[in-house]
């Protein structure tokens, strides 16, 4: 009688062991998959940020390369305001001094410095295009108009890429700090990416229109 009970008990114990082992294995597998998923999402979010950053950088470089042509064309026009041209040349030179190391920016202060130099260049170009409005000779010059299109094109691309960069960095940083992800990030050494700061003037302000007349 007792023998039978012992055998039965041992059987139950065995089954219990199997179940426990299975559960541990299952939990382990789930954890691994979860970690792998988080890791992969982190990688792809980081890649997205890298891609938008290199787009910004490309457009900055393109603008940098276009400016000498522009300055040469504008100089050809007699009595063009010297101070405006000098401001552009000076701003370009300061961008040349504030170069970043290749790759994703990691140092917020350095990034800030660089962005500020670039924004200064953008602002001086903007002023120049305003001054140009007073020179009909330039407004009829096909070469100048083409350069203006290209420079405005780069400005717009920079604005777009900057918005994309900010969005992707925000997504990455938020994801990084969430609970299970922060463990994965800690293990594999993912770090917060520096967010860009805007100048007040450069921030795109939404136009506010008060339209009381035809409310739905």
């Amino acid at each position, binding site marked *: 009688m007792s023998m039978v009970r012992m055998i039965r008990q041992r059987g139950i114990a065995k089954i219990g062991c199997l179940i426990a082992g299975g559960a541990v294995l299952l939990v382990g597998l789930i954890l691994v998959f979860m970690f792998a998923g988080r890791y992969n999402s982190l990688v792809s979010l980081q890649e997205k940020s890298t891609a938008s950053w290199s787009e910004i950088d490309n457009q900055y470089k393109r603008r940098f390369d276009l400016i000498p042509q522009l300055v040469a064309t504008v100089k050809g026009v007699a009595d063009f305001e010297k101070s405006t041209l000098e401001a552009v040349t000076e701003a370009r030179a300061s961008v040349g001094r504030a170069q970043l190391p290749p790759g994703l920016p990691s140092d917020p202060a350095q990034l800030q410095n660089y962005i500020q130099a670039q924004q200064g260049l953008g602002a001086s170009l903007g002023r120049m295009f305003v001054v140009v409005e007073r020179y009909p000779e330039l407004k009829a010059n096909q070469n100048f108009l083409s350069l203006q*299109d290209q420079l*405005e094109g780069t400005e*717009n691309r920079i604005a*777009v890429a900057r918005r994309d960069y900010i969005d992707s960095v925000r997504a990455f940083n938020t994801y990084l700090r969430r609970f299970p992800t922060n463990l994965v990030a800690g293990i594999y050494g993912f770090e917060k990416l520096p967010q860009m700061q805007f100048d007040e003037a450069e921030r795109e302000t*939404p*136009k506010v229109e008060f339209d009381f007349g035809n409310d739905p």
Partner: protein
Amino acid sequence: MRIRPTTIRVATCCLLALICTTASSNEQPIPQNDGWVTDLGDFLTPQQETMLEALMESYRAGSGHEIALLTVPDLGGRTLERYALEVSRAWGLGEKGRNNGALLFVTRAERKMRIEVGRGLEGNLTDSISGRIIRNVVAPEFKRGHLYEGLRDGIQAMHAAAGGDYGRIPRSRGRRSGGLGLMPMIFFIWLIFGLSRRRGRGRGGGLLTGMFLGSMMMRGSHGGHSTGWHGGGFGGGGGFSGGGASGSW
């Protein structure tokens, strides 16, 4: 009592934030596209729209490039560049992976326009060519009041710049007519199945009807795809990074 400057600053910030949030929620949603030509700004008569639509579909068929036209009455709180970009991305202009889409975007109230170019076409339809099309092709016609001519010539200039051929226009040009044409038939079949079920075969009829109807619907929507305009959207590319040019008239 003196109000401290920090208090003023905080109050201003709060006010600004409030204005910003209300402004952004006031933004109109991205308009739905209806074919290659979406004329919300009323630049074209229905006939002109049909002609332009045929031209653009023929170009798409021959070249694979997806070039669309959108006119709006006003910008509704966005900037020109932002509006054009958001529309191009939301519509998914261009084939997936190739991003060979472009958009001619015109707003009536502000008298502005923009050519937004997808990444895949940036090499051909460059910023300066886009600018030239706006300045030398579209704007002069608009100034003379020739809206249709301006849009047509602008689209053709974009076609020429982007390269590729015109193709054959598919026979049936009825938009989404495939699905609609099947409706009476589906109704008829549903009626027959319903009657036969009532005769007493129990529940099986319901399932069968469902399956049959389901398959008919599927075929209906597929039919819509192969003829003329494909219902919901474009190729799903939407790879735009702000290339193109803006102008006014």
